[in-house]
């Protein structure tokens, strides 16, 4: 059974996701950040779908669980492509989009193969386990890719403030997920006490993106190197 806090967090998350798309349309940044917006739009639609399944079948039903795990896998894949689109934006001037696409496809295929090899032994619900394993593995791939992208931003002296904020918020999102995942494995008893943490983290990413797109003008510049280097 869901508590009122669960419903509020869920409602806010869906609202923030929709607001990212609305802010992008309003600031005419929808096409520039197309995959980011696509992820947010898809995420909001999935939320509505999950709400419908939950109301119809119930929280503990198999239908809700299947819908949840499959939709999460699709969401993480779309988040992966959103992250790759940020790579394309950062490396745009180097004219290496072709290689970014090649690397993205190779990495996704490698992750899928690794996930398949992990669940290959399980006989029951193999497709569900594969979707679950793939989404988990893609989270960690996304975490590493985000840190590599941040390194590239520092190295290339990328100054677009909006891009920097989007990448940084993505880094916080993936890091928080990895930390929560570590706690849930180290101390499952502790994890159940902070059950709201993961949904709240899921809420904060669209909020950060919506704020960045709404408040930071496209022409705004920042020096990320100053954030990383401590001057004495």
């Amino acid at each position: 059974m869901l508590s009122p806090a669960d419903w509020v967090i869920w409602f806010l998350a869906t609202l923030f996701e929709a607001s990212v798309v609305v802010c992008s349309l309003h600031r005419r940044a929808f096409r520039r950040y197309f995959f980011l917006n696509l992820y947010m739009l898809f995420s909001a639609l999935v939320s509505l779908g999950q709400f419908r399944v939950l109301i119809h079948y119930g929280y503990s039903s198999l239908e809700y669980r299947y819908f949840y795990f499959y939709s999460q896998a699709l969401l993480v894949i779309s988040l992966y492509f959103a992250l790759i689109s940020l790579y394309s934006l950062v490396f745009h001037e180097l004219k290496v989009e072709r290689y970014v696409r090649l690397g993205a496809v190779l990495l996704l295929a490698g992750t899928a193969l690794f996930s398949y090899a992990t669940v290959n032994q399980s006989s029951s619900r193999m497709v569900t386990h594969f979707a679950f394993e793939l989404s988990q593995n893609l989270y960690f791939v996304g975490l590493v890719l985000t840190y590599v992208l941040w390194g590239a931003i520092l190295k290339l002296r990328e100054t677009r403030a909006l891009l920097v904020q989007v990448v940084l918020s993505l880094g916080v999102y993936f890091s928080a997920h990895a930390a929560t995942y570590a706690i849930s494995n180290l101390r499952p008893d502790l994890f159940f006490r902070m059950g709201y943490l993961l949904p709240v983290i899921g809420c904060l990413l669209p909020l950060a993106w919506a704020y960045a797109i709404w408040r930071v003008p496209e022409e705004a510049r920042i020096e990320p190197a100053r954030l990383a280097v401590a001057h004495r």
Partner: protein
Amino acid sequence: MSRKLTVVLFAMLVLTGAMGLKAVVTAHGNGTAALSANGVPIPPPF
């Protein structure tokens, strides 16, 4: 050609790093914890 090989090497390095990180994180657990991408309540396990 060397650029393509660099891309392949990069993809392999990222995959190895990510799976290594996951192995470290799940070293003391069974790796069955679910993640939530979009603020939706996580259902009970199967």
